[in-house]
Protein backbone atom coordinates (compact mmCIF):
# COMPACT_ATOMS: atom_id res chain seq x y z
CA UNK A 1 0.00 0.00 0.00
CA UNK A 2 1.90 3.04 -1.21
CA UNK A 3 -0.89 5.62 -1.37
CA UNK A 4 0.16 9.02 -0.04
CA UNK A 5 -1.72 9.60 3.23
CA UNK A 6 -2.73 13.16 2.48
CA UNK A 7 -4.97 12.71 -0.55
CA UNK A 8 -7.76 10.68 0.99
CA UNK A 9 -8.95 13.05 3.66
CA UNK A 10 -8.87 15.98 1.26
CA UNK A 11 -10.75 14.37 -1.60
CA UNK A 12 -13.20 12.54 0.67
CA UNK A 13 -12.92 9.40 -1.37
CA UNK A 14 -13.37 6.17 0.51
CA UNK A 15 -11.41 3.46 -1.18
CA UNK A 16 -12.53 0.01 -0.22
CA UNK A 17 -9.13 -0.74 1.26
CA UNK A 18 -9.63 1.87 3.92
CA UNK A 19 -13.08 0.58 4.81
CA UNK A 20 -11.62 -2.87 5.46
CA UNK A 21 -9.90 -1.44 8.50
CA UNK A 22 -13.18 -0.83 10.27
CA UNK A 23 -14.84 -4.08 9.28
CA UNK A 24 -13.93 -5.91 12.50
CA UNK A 25 -15.53 -3.18 14.59
CA UNK A 26 -18.71 -3.02 12.56
CA UNK A 27 -18.99 -6.79 12.38
CA UNK A 28 -18.54 -7.14 16.13
CA UNK A 29 -21.09 -4.50 17.01
CA UNK A 30 -23.47 -5.86 14.41
CA UNK A 31 -23.44 -9.28 16.01
CA UNK A 32 -23.46 -8.30 19.65
CA UNK A 33 -25.34 -5.05 19.63
CA UNK A 34 -27.37 -4.47 16.50
CA UNK A 35 -28.86 -7.94 16.23
CA UNK A 36 -30.01 -8.21 19.85
CA UNK A 37 -31.56 -4.76 19.60
CA UNK A 38 -33.39 -5.69 16.44
CA UNK A 39 -34.58 -8.94 17.97
CA UNK A 40 -36.09 -6.97 20.83
CA UNK A 41 -37.58 -4.27 18.61
CA UNK A 42 -39.11 -6.76 16.22
CA UNK A 43 -40.27 -8.97 19.07
CA UNK A 44 -42.23 -6.09 20.57
CA UNK A 45 -44.55 -6.33 17.60
CA UNK A 46 -45.00 -10.08 17.66
CA UNK A 47 -47.28 -12.09 19.85
CA UNK A 48 -46.55 -15.38 21.56
CA UNK A 49 -46.80 -17.40 18.37
CA UNK A 50 -44.75 -15.04 16.27
CA UNK A 51 -47.53 -13.23 14.49
CA UNK A 52 -47.51 -9.43 14.11
CA UNK A 53 -49.65 -7.60 16.62
CA UNK A 54 -50.05 -4.24 18.27
CA UNK A 55 -51.35 -5.88 21.43
CA UNK A 56 -48.05 -5.48 23.26
CA UNK A 57 -48.03 -1.76 22.70
CA UNK A 58 -51.59 -1.36 23.87
CA UNK A 59 -50.68 -3.43 26.93
CA UNK A 60 -48.34 -0.57 27.81
CA UNK A 61 -51.35 1.53 28.69
CA UNK A 62 -52.07 -0.56 31.78
CA UNK A 63 -51.99 1.60 34.91
CA UNK A 64 -49.14 -0.19 36.63
CA UNK A 65 -46.93 0.10 33.55
CA UNK A 66 -47.74 3.76 33.05
CA UNK A 67 -46.96 4.48 36.68
CA UNK A 68 -43.73 2.49 36.37
CA UNK A 69 -42.69 4.73 33.47
CA UNK A 70 -43.60 7.81 35.51
CA UNK A 71 -41.71 6.56 38.56
CA UNK A 72 -38.67 5.70 36.47
CA UNK A 73 -38.64 9.13 34.86
CA UNK A 74 -39.05 10.96 38.16
CA UNK A 75 -36.44 8.82 39.89
CA UNK A 76 -33.96 9.30 37.07
CA UNK A 77 -34.56 13.04 36.79
CA UNK A 78 -34.24 13.70 40.51
CA UNK A 79 -31.14 11.57 40.99
CA UNK A 80 -29.61 13.01 37.81
CA UNK A 81 -30.06 16.55 39.14
CA UNK A 82 -28.81 15.69 42.61
CA UNK A 83 -25.89 13.78 41.15
CA UNK A 84 -25.13 16.60 38.72
CA UNK A 85 -25.12 19.36 41.30
CA UNK A 86 -23.14 17.57 43.98
CA UNK A 87 -20.98 15.86 41.41
CA UNK A 88 -20.15 19.16 39.75
CA UNK A 89 -19.13 20.63 43.11
CA UNK A 90 -16.94 17.63 43.75
CA UNK A 91 -15.48 17.82 40.25
CA UNK A 92 -14.54 21.43 40.60
CA UNK A 93 -13.04 20.75 44.00
CA UNK A 94 -10.96 17.91 42.60
CA UNK A 95 -9.96 19.89 39.50
CA UNK A 96 -8.41 22.59 41.66
CA UNK A 97 -6.21 20.01 43.32
CA UNK A 98 -2.73 19.39 42.05
CA UNK A 99 -2.74 17.23 38.94
CA UNK A 100 -1.14 13.91 39.74
CA UNK A 101 -1.49 14.60 43.42
CA UNK A 102 -2.76 12.03 45.87
CA UNK A 103 -6.17 13.60 46.44
CA UNK A 104 -7.06 13.71 42.80
CA UNK A 105 -5.80 10.21 42.17
CA UNK A 106 -7.71 8.83 45.14
CA UNK A 107 -10.95 10.57 44.37
CA UNK A 108 -10.85 9.78 40.65
CA UNK A 109 -10.10 6.11 41.23
CA UNK A 110 -12.74 5.84 43.92
CA UNK A 111 -15.28 7.42 41.63
CA UNK A 112 -14.30 5.10 38.83
CA UNK A 113 -15.12 2.15 41.03
CA UNK A 114 -18.25 3.54 42.69
CA UNK A 115 -19.79 4.65 39.40
CA UNK A 116 -19.95 1.02 38.33
CA UNK A 117 -20.64 -0.59 41.66
CA UNK A 118 -24.38 -0.48 41.59
CA UNK A 119 -26.26 -3.69 41.88
CA UNK A 120 -25.72 -6.29 44.51
CA UNK A 121 -22.79 -4.64 46.29
CA UNK A 122 -24.50 -1.30 46.67
CA UNK A 123 -27.75 -2.87 47.83
CA UNK A 124 -25.86 -4.86 50.47
CA UNK A 125 -24.00 -1.75 51.57
CA UNK A 126 -27.21 0.17 52.09
CA UNK A 127 -28.86 -2.72 53.84
CA UNK A 128 -25.84 -2.88 56.14
CA UNK A 129 -26.40 0.82 56.86
CA UNK A 130 -30.10 1.47 56.91
CA UNK A 131 -31.96 -1.78 57.44
CA UNK A 132 -33.43 -2.78 60.77
CA UNK A 133 -30.06 -4.02 62.01
CA UNK A 134 -28.07 -1.56 59.96
CA UNK A 135 -25.33 0.43 61.58
CA UNK A 136 -27.02 3.83 61.26
CA UNK A 137 -30.40 2.58 62.42
CA UNK A 138 -28.93 0.99 65.50
CA UNK A 139 -26.83 4.07 66.21
CA UNK A 140 -29.72 6.49 65.82
CA UNK A 141 -31.85 4.27 68.03
CA UNK A 142 -29.56 5.26 70.89
CA UNK A 143 -30.64 8.83 70.36
CA UNK A 144 -34.28 7.93 70.20
CA UNK A 145 -34.63 8.20 66.42
CA UNK A 146 -36.44 5.10 65.27
CA UNK A 147 -35.80 4.22 61.65
CA UNK A 148 -36.36 0.50 62.03
CA UNK A 149 -40.11 0.51 62.08
CA UNK A 150 -40.41 2.23 58.75
CA UNK A 151 -39.53 0.60 55.50
CA UNK A 152 -38.43 3.75 53.74
CA UNK A 153 -35.30 2.10 52.39
CA UNK A 154 -37.36 -0.07 50.07
CA UNK A 155 -39.54 2.71 48.68
CA UNK A 156 -38.62 3.81 45.20
CA UNK A 157 -38.99 7.46 46.07
CA UNK A 158 -36.98 7.40 49.26
CA UNK A 159 -34.52 4.59 49.70
CA UNK A 160 -33.93 3.86 46.05
CA UNK A 161 -33.38 7.54 45.31
CA UNK A 162 -30.71 7.73 47.98
CA UNK A 163 -29.02 4.62 46.69
CA UNK A 164 -29.00 5.88 43.12
CA UNK A 165 -27.29 9.15 44.04
CA UNK A 166 -24.53 6.98 45.39
CA UNK A 167 -23.46 6.01 41.93
CA UNK A 168 -24.67 9.15 40.15
CA UNK A 169 -22.27 11.51 41.88
CA UNK A 170 -19.14 9.51 40.96
CA UNK A 171 -20.35 9.12 37.41
CA UNK A 172 -20.78 12.87 37.21
CA UNK A 173 -17.22 13.34 38.30
CA UNK A 174 -15.89 10.97 35.69
CA UNK A 175 -17.92 12.50 32.89
CA UNK A 176 -17.53 16.15 33.86
CA UNK A 177 -13.89 16.22 34.97
CA UNK A 178 -12.38 16.43 31.45
CA UNK A 179 -14.53 19.46 30.78
CA UNK A 180 -13.61 21.22 34.00
CA UNK A 181 -9.97 20.37 33.47
CA UNK A 182 -10.24 21.97 30.05
CA UNK A 183 -10.83 25.37 31.63
CA UNK A 184 -7.64 27.18 30.86
CA UNK A 185 -6.11 29.16 33.71
CA UNK A 186 -5.46 31.89 31.16
CA UNK A 187 -9.17 32.57 30.95
CA UNK A 188 -9.39 33.02 34.70
CA UNK A 189 -6.42 35.36 34.62
CA UNK A 190 -7.84 37.26 31.71
CA UNK A 191 -11.12 37.73 33.53
CA UNK A 192 -9.31 38.93 36.61
CA UNK A 193 -7.06 41.29 34.74
CA UNK A 194 -10.18 42.87 33.28
CA UNK A 195 -11.41 43.48 36.82
CA UNK A 196 -13.89 40.64 37.06
CA UNK A 197 -14.69 38.96 40.34
CA UNK A 198 -15.14 35.25 40.91
CA UNK A 199 -18.84 35.64 40.37
CA UNK A 200 -18.25 37.42 37.06
CA UNK A 201 -15.85 34.77 35.96
CA UNK A 202 -18.36 32.04 36.60
CA UNK A 203 -21.34 33.91 35.23
CA UNK A 204 -19.76 35.13 32.00
CA UNK A 205 -16.82 32.87 31.22
CA UNK A 206 -16.70 29.47 32.85
CA UNK A 207 -20.45 29.04 33.23
CA UNK A 208 -21.38 29.33 29.57
CA UNK A 209 -18.41 27.20 28.55
CA UNK A 210 -19.24 24.44 30.99
CA UNK A 211 -23.00 24.64 30.54
CA UNK A 212 -23.29 22.33 27.52
CA UNK A 213 -21.01 19.81 29.17
CA UNK A 214 -22.92 20.07 32.45
CA UNK A 215 -26.27 19.57 30.82
CA UNK A 216 -24.85 16.78 28.70
CA UNK A 217 -23.50 15.04 31.76
CA UNK A 218 -26.84 15.43 33.53
CA UNK A 219 -28.56 13.80 30.60
CA UNK A 220 -26.08 10.96 30.77
CA UNK A 221 -26.86 10.56 34.45
CA UNK A 222 -30.55 10.44 33.61
CA UNK A 223 -29.95 7.65 31.13
CA UNK A 224 -27.82 5.78 33.60
CA UNK A 225 -30.48 5.84 36.31
CA UNK A 226 -33.29 5.07 33.89
CA UNK A 227 -31.59 1.92 32.65
CA UNK A 228 -30.33 0.62 35.98
CA UNK A 229 -31.70 -2.77 36.93
CA UNK A 230 -29.44 -4.73 39.27
CA UNK A 231 -29.53 -2.26 42.18
CA UNK A 232 -33.30 -2.04 42.28
CA UNK A 233 -33.58 -5.79 41.81
CA UNK A 234 -31.28 -6.43 44.73
CA UNK A 235 -33.00 -3.93 47.02
CA UNK A 236 -36.71 -4.01 46.19
CA UNK A 237 -38.37 -7.36 46.20
CA UNK A 238 -42.02 -6.32 46.38
CA UNK A 239 -43.75 -4.76 43.45
CA UNK A 240 -42.02 -3.41 40.40
CA UNK A 241 -42.25 0.34 40.79
CA UNK A 242 -39.82 1.09 37.99
CA UNK A 243 -39.68 -0.05 34.39
CA UNK A 244 -36.52 -2.19 34.45
CA UNK A 245 -38.06 -4.24 37.25
CA UNK A 246 -41.25 -4.60 35.24
CA UNK A 247 -39.22 -5.93 32.33
CA UNK A 248 -37.34 -8.30 34.60
CA UNK A 249 -40.68 -9.47 35.91
CA UNK A 250 -41.92 -10.43 32.46
CA UNK A 251 -38.82 -12.55 31.98
CA UNK A 252 -38.71 -14.33 35.31
CA UNK A 253 -42.19 -14.33 36.79
CA UNK A 254 -43.53 -17.78 37.44
CA UNK A 255 -47.04 -16.57 38.13
CA UNK A 256 -47.90 -14.36 35.19
CA UNK A 257 -46.60 -16.01 32.10
CA UNK A 258 -46.30 -15.31 28.42
CA UNK A 259 -45.56 -11.64 28.86
CA UNK A 260 -42.11 -11.65 27.32
CA UNK A 261 -43.25 -9.73 24.29
CA UNK A 262 -44.94 -7.11 26.45
CA UNK A 263 -41.56 -6.89 28.14
CA UNK A 264 -40.02 -6.22 24.74
CA UNK A 265 -42.60 -3.52 24.14
CA UNK A 266 -41.67 -1.95 27.48
CA UNK A 267 -38.04 -2.18 26.46
CA UNK A 268 -38.92 -0.42 23.24
CA UNK A 269 -40.56 2.36 25.24
CA UNK A 270 -37.48 2.65 27.42
CA UNK A 271 -35.21 2.74 24.40
CA UNK A 272 -37.36 5.45 22.83
CA UNK A 273 -37.20 7.70 25.88
CA UNK A 274 -33.51 7.17 26.38
CA UNK A 275 -32.79 7.67 22.68
CA UNK A 276 -34.31 11.13 22.83
CA UNK A 277 -32.19 12.01 25.84
CA UNK A 278 -29.03 10.60 24.29
CA UNK A 279 -29.54 12.54 21.08
CA UNK A 280 -29.69 15.73 23.09
CA UNK A 281 -26.55 14.62 24.88
CA UNK A 282 -24.65 14.05 21.65
CA UNK A 283 -25.69 17.43 20.28
CA UNK A 284 -24.45 19.12 23.44
CA UNK A 285 -21.20 17.18 23.43
CA UNK A 286 -20.40 18.53 19.99
CA UNK A 287 -20.92 22.08 21.15
CA UNK A 288 -18.61 21.49 24.08
CA UNK A 289 -15.75 20.11 22.06
CA UNK A 290 -15.54 23.40 20.20
CA UNK A 291 -14.41 25.30 23.27
CA UNK A 292 -12.48 22.75 25.16
CA UNK A 293 -9.88 22.19 22.54
CA UNK A 294 -10.40 19.13 20.41
Amino acid at each position, binding site marked *: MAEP*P*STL*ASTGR*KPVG*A*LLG*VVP*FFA*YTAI*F*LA*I*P*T*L*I*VVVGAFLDGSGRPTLGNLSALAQPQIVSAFVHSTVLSAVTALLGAVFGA*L*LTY*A*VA*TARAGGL*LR*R*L*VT*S*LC*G*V*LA*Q*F*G*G*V*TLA*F*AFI*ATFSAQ*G*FLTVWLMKYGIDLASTTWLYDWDKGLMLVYTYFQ*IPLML*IVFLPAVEGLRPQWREAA*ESLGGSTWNYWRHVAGPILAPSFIGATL*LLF*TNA*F*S*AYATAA*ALISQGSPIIPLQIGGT*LSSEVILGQENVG*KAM*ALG*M*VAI*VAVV*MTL*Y*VVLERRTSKWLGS
Partner: protein
Amino acid sequence: MSLHATRRRRQAGFRWTVVGVIGLFFALPIFSMVEFTTRAPGGGRTLDTWATLFNFSVIDADYPELKTGILASAGLTVLTVTIMLFLLVPTMTWVRLRLPRLRRTVEFICLLPLTIPAIVLVVGLAPVYAWVAYFLGESSLWLALAYVILVLPYAYRALDAGLRAIDVKTLAEAARSLGAGWPTVMWRVILPNIRTAVLSAAFLSVALVLGEFTIASLFSRDNLQVAINLLGKRDGSLAIAAALAALVLAFIVLIAMSFVGTGRRSHRPEEN
Protein backbone atom coordinates in the same frame (compact mmCIF):
# COMPACT_ATOMS: atom_id res chain seq x y z
CA MET B 1 0.15 37.67 43.23
CA SER B 2 -1.62 38.00 46.57
CA LEU B 3 -4.87 37.67 44.64
CA HIS B 4 -3.73 34.28 43.49
CA ALA B 5 -2.71 33.27 46.97
CA THR B 6 -6.10 34.24 48.43
CA ARG B 7 -7.83 32.44 45.67
CA ARG B 8 -5.69 29.37 46.17
CA ARG B 9 -6.48 29.38 49.87
CA ARG B 10 -10.17 29.76 49.26
CA GLN B 11 -10.06 27.02 46.68
CA ALA B 12 -8.25 24.74 49.07
CA GLY B 13 -10.84 25.49 51.74
CA PHE B 14 -13.67 24.86 49.34
CA ARG B 15 -11.97 21.72 48.09
CA TRP B 16 -11.52 20.15 51.49
CA THR B 17 -15.02 21.04 52.64
CA VAL B 18 -16.69 19.58 49.59
CA VAL B 19 -14.53 16.49 49.50
CA GLY B 20 -15.00 16.08 53.23
CA VAL B 21 -18.78 16.29 53.23
CA ILE B 22 -19.29 14.19 50.14
CA GLY B 23 -16.59 11.88 51.36
CA LEU B 24 -18.58 11.28 54.54
CA PHE B 25 -21.64 10.40 52.50
CA PHE B 26 -19.64 7.85 50.56
CA ALA B 27 -17.74 6.54 53.52
CA LEU B 28 -20.87 5.79 55.54
CA PRO B 29 -22.15 2.70 53.72
CA ILE B 30 -18.63 1.35 53.36
CA PHE B 31 -18.01 1.87 57.05
CA SER B 32 -21.33 0.17 57.78
CA MET B 33 -20.25 -2.83 55.77
CA VAL B 34 -17.11 -3.10 57.86
CA GLU B 35 -19.14 -2.67 61.04
CA PHE B 36 -21.69 -5.28 59.99
CA THR B 37 -19.11 -7.87 59.10
CA THR B 38 -17.26 -7.49 62.39
CA ARG B 39 -20.23 -7.96 64.69
CA ALA B 40 -19.86 -10.76 67.16
CA PRO B 41 -22.98 -12.55 68.37
CA GLY B 42 -23.81 -11.02 71.72
CA GLY B 43 -22.10 -7.68 71.12
CA GLY B 44 -18.43 -6.93 70.67
CA ARG B 45 -16.24 -7.21 67.63
CA THR B 46 -14.81 -10.21 65.84
CA LEU B 47 -12.79 -10.79 62.72
CA ASP B 48 -14.23 -14.27 62.16
CA THR B 49 -16.06 -13.42 58.96
CA TRP B 50 -12.97 -11.86 57.44
CA ALA B 51 -10.84 -14.78 58.55
CA THR B 52 -13.24 -17.15 56.79
CA LEU B 53 -13.23 -15.04 53.65
CA PHE B 54 -9.46 -15.18 53.34
CA ASN B 55 -9.19 -18.81 54.37
CA PHE B 56 -8.94 -20.32 50.92
CA SER B 57 -9.36 -23.91 51.97
CA VAL B 58 -12.64 -23.12 53.73
CA ILE B 59 -13.89 -21.17 50.74
CA ASP B 60 -12.92 -24.03 48.47
CA ALA B 61 -14.76 -26.57 50.63
CA ASP B 62 -17.84 -24.74 51.87
CA TYR B 63 -18.38 -21.95 49.37
CA PRO B 64 -17.25 -23.32 46.01
CA GLU B 65 -19.56 -21.01 44.10
CA LEU B 66 -17.70 -18.02 45.52
CA LYS B 67 -14.39 -19.40 44.33
CA THR B 68 -15.79 -20.11 40.85
CA GLY B 69 -17.25 -16.63 40.73
CA ILE B 70 -13.97 -14.96 41.68
CA LEU B 71 -11.95 -16.91 39.13
CA ALA B 72 -14.52 -16.30 36.42
CA SER B 73 -14.53 -12.57 37.06
CA ALA B 74 -10.75 -12.40 37.03
CA GLY B 75 -10.68 -14.09 33.63
CA LEU B 76 -13.53 -11.94 32.36
CA THR B 77 -11.71 -8.75 33.30
CA VAL B 78 -8.59 -9.69 31.39
CA LEU B 79 -10.48 -10.93 28.36
CA THR B 80 -12.82 -7.93 28.19
CA VAL B 81 -10.01 -5.38 28.41
CA THR B 82 -7.98 -7.22 25.76
CA ILE B 83 -10.83 -7.53 23.28
CA MET B 84 -11.89 -3.94 23.90
CA LEU B 85 -8.42 -2.57 23.23
CA PHE B 86 -7.83 -4.70 20.15
CA LEU B 87 -11.19 -3.68 18.79
CA LEU B 88 -11.27 0.01 19.62
CA VAL B 89 -7.73 1.37 19.38
CA PRO B 90 -7.03 0.32 15.78
CA THR B 91 -10.55 1.23 14.69
CA MET B 92 -10.52 4.68 16.24
CA THR B 93 -7.05 5.47 14.96
CA TRP B 94 -7.95 4.26 11.49
CA VAL B 95 -11.10 6.35 11.47
CA ARG B 96 -9.14 9.41 12.51
CA LEU B 97 -6.57 8.86 9.82
CA ARG B 98 -8.50 7.57 6.88
CA LEU B 99 -12.24 7.77 7.38
CA PRO B 100 -13.09 10.98 9.22
CA ARG B 101 -16.62 10.90 7.82
CA LEU B 102 -17.26 7.69 9.74
CA ARG B 103 -16.34 9.26 13.06
CA ARG B 104 -19.92 10.24 13.84
CA THR B 105 -21.13 6.75 13.01
CA VAL B 106 -18.56 5.05 15.19
CA GLU B 107 -19.31 7.47 18.00
CA PHE B 108 -23.01 6.79 17.70
CA ILE B 109 -22.49 3.05 17.78
CA CYS B 110 -20.25 3.34 20.80
CA LEU B 111 -22.81 5.38 22.68
CA LEU B 112 -25.64 3.06 21.77
CA PRO B 113 -25.12 0.66 24.70
CA LEU B 114 -26.06 3.50 27.04
CA THR B 115 -29.46 3.50 25.44
CA ILE B 116 -29.99 -0.22 25.68
CA PRO B 117 -30.00 -1.52 29.23
CA ALA B 118 -28.36 -4.83 29.96
CA ILE B 119 -31.63 -6.47 30.80
CA VAL B 120 -32.97 -5.74 27.33
CA LEU B 121 -29.73 -6.73 25.65
CA VAL B 122 -29.90 -10.12 27.35
CA VAL B 123 -33.22 -10.99 25.74
CA GLY B 124 -31.80 -10.19 22.33
CA LEU B 125 -28.47 -11.85 23.03
CA ALA B 126 -29.96 -15.24 23.85
CA PRO B 127 -30.01 -16.57 20.25
CA VAL B 128 -26.61 -14.99 19.56
CA TYR B 129 -25.11 -16.73 22.55
CA ALA B 130 -26.53 -20.03 21.37
CA TRP B 131 -24.20 -19.64 18.39
CA VAL B 132 -21.33 -18.51 20.57
CA ALA B 133 -21.73 -21.61 22.69
CA TYR B 134 -21.78 -23.75 19.56
CA PHE B 135 -18.50 -22.38 18.26
CA LEU B 136 -16.67 -21.51 21.43
CA GLY B 137 -18.15 -23.56 24.23
CA GLU B 138 -20.18 -22.54 27.23
CA SER B 139 -17.54 -21.15 29.53
CA SER B 140 -18.46 -18.08 31.57
CA LEU B 141 -15.48 -16.37 29.97
CA TRP B 142 -17.39 -15.77 26.75
CA LEU B 143 -19.57 -13.30 28.60
CA ALA B 144 -16.64 -11.01 27.83
CA LEU B 145 -18.00 -10.65 24.31
CA ALA B 146 -21.13 -9.01 25.70
CA TYR B 147 -19.17 -7.06 28.32
CA VAL B 148 -17.12 -5.37 25.60
CA ILE B 149 -20.37 -3.92 24.31
CA LEU B 150 -21.31 -2.66 27.77
CA VAL B 151 -17.90 -1.07 28.12
CA LEU B 152 -17.89 0.63 24.69
CA PRO B 153 -19.31 4.04 25.73
CA TYR B 154 -16.84 4.58 28.55
CA ALA B 155 -13.86 3.17 26.67
CA TYR B 156 -14.69 5.23 23.60
CA ARG B 157 -14.82 8.46 25.58
CA ALA B 158 -11.52 7.77 27.24
CA LEU B 159 -9.72 6.71 24.07
CA ASP B 160 -11.25 9.56 22.09
CA ALA B 161 -9.96 12.09 24.60
CA GLY B 162 -6.53 10.49 24.33
CA LEU B 163 -6.48 10.48 20.55
CA ARG B 164 -7.68 14.06 20.43
CA ALA B 165 -4.79 15.15 22.57
CA ILE B 166 -2.11 13.85 20.22
CA ASP B 167 -1.59 14.64 16.58
CA VAL B 168 -2.38 11.25 15.14
CA LYS B 169 -1.94 12.27 11.51
CA THR B 170 1.55 13.63 11.89
CA LEU B 171 2.75 10.75 13.99
CA ALA B 172 1.34 8.20 11.59
CA GLU B 173 2.65 9.96 8.51
CA ALA B 174 6.07 10.35 10.04
CA ALA B 175 6.23 6.68 10.94
CA ARG B 176 4.94 5.59 7.56
CA SER B 177 7.38 7.80 5.70
CA LEU B 178 10.14 6.12 7.68
CA GLY B 179 8.91 2.78 6.35
CA ALA B 180 6.85 1.44 9.23
CA GLY B 181 4.02 -0.94 8.48
CA TRP B 182 0.57 -0.33 9.96
CA PRO B 183 0.94 -2.79 12.84
CA THR B 184 4.17 -1.07 13.86
CA VAL B 185 2.50 2.31 13.66
CA MET B 186 -0.32 1.18 15.92
CA TRP B 187 1.75 -0.71 18.41
CA ARG B 188 4.92 1.34 18.68
CA VAL B 189 3.87 4.84 17.73
CA ILE B 190 0.22 5.47 18.55
CA LEU B 191 -0.29 3.22 21.55
CA PRO B 192 2.55 4.52 23.73
CA ASN B 193 1.34 8.05 23.16
CA ILE B 194 -2.17 7.37 24.35
CA ARG B 195 -1.05 5.32 27.31
CA THR B 196 -3.06 7.33 29.85
CA ALA B 197 -6.20 7.07 27.80
CA VAL B 198 -5.73 3.33 27.33
CA LEU B 199 -5.25 2.89 31.05
CA SER B 200 -8.29 5.00 31.74
CA ALA B 201 -10.36 2.88 29.37
CA ALA B 202 -8.96 -0.24 31.02
CA PHE B 203 -9.83 1.09 34.54
CA LEU B 204 -13.43 1.71 33.63
CA SER B 205 -13.66 -1.72 32.01
CA VAL B 206 -12.28 -3.44 35.10
CA ALA B 207 -14.76 -1.62 37.33
CA LEU B 208 -17.66 -2.46 35.06
CA VAL B 209 -16.79 -6.13 34.67
CA LEU B 210 -16.31 -6.64 38.40
CA GLY B 211 -19.67 -5.00 39.09
CA GLU B 212 -21.74 -6.67 36.37
CA PHE B 213 -24.63 -8.83 37.50
CA THR B 214 -27.60 -8.74 35.14
CA ILE B 215 -26.22 -10.52 32.08
CA ALA B 216 -24.29 -13.14 34.01
CA SER B 217 -27.25 -14.06 36.17
CA LEU B 218 -29.75 -14.20 33.32
CA PHE B 219 -27.43 -16.42 31.29
CA SER B 220 -26.88 -18.73 34.26
CA ARG B 221 -23.16 -18.14 34.19
CA ASP B 222 -20.81 -17.63 37.10
CA ASN B 223 -19.31 -14.32 37.99
CA LEU B 224 -18.36 -12.47 41.13
CA GLN B 225 -21.59 -10.56 41.71
CA VAL B 226 -23.78 -13.57 40.99
CA ALA B 227 -21.75 -15.56 43.52
CA ILE B 228 -22.02 -12.79 46.11
CA ASN B 229 -25.75 -12.48 45.59
CA LEU B 230 -26.17 -16.19 46.10
CA LEU B 231 -23.98 -16.09 49.16
CA GLY B 232 -26.17 -13.32 50.54
CA LYS B 233 -29.07 -15.71 50.81
CA ARG B 234 -27.09 -18.12 52.93
CA ASP B 235 -24.69 -16.02 54.93
CA GLY B 236 -25.32 -12.29 54.93
CA SER B 237 -22.18 -11.35 56.78
CA LEU B 238 -19.80 -13.27 54.54
CA ALA B 239 -21.50 -11.95 51.43
CA ILE B 240 -21.12 -8.36 52.58
CA ALA B 241 -17.48 -9.03 53.40
CA ALA B 242 -16.93 -10.48 49.93
CA ALA B 243 -18.66 -7.51 48.31
CA LEU B 244 -16.52 -5.07 50.27
CA ALA B 245 -13.36 -7.00 49.43
CA ALA B 246 -14.20 -6.85 45.72
CA LEU B 247 -14.84 -3.11 45.98
CA VAL B 248 -11.53 -2.52 47.71
CA LEU B 249 -9.70 -4.70 45.20
CA ALA B 250 -11.12 -2.78 42.25
CA PHE B 251 -10.13 0.45 43.97
CA ILE B 252 -6.56 -0.72 44.52
CA VAL B 253 -6.27 -1.87 40.92
CA LEU B 254 -7.44 1.51 39.68
CA ILE B 255 -5.15 3.48 41.93
CA ALA B 256 -2.19 1.36 40.92
CA MET B 257 -3.04 1.80 37.25
CA SER B 258 -3.20 5.54 37.70
CA PHE B 259 0.34 5.54 39.07
CA VAL B 260 1.65 3.48 36.17
CA GLY B 261 0.15 5.97 33.77
CA THR B 262 1.63 9.17 35.08
CA GLY B 263 4.93 7.58 36.01
CA ARG B 264 6.03 7.73 32.41
CA ARG B 265 4.76 11.20 31.82
CA SER B 266 7.15 12.66 34.35
CA HIS B 267 10.10 11.60 32.18
CA ARG B 268 9.04 13.78 29.29
CA PRO B 269 9.41 17.56 29.32
CA GLU B 270 6.22 19.30 30.40
CA GLU B 271 4.20 20.64 27.50
CA ASN B 272 2.20 23.81 27.81
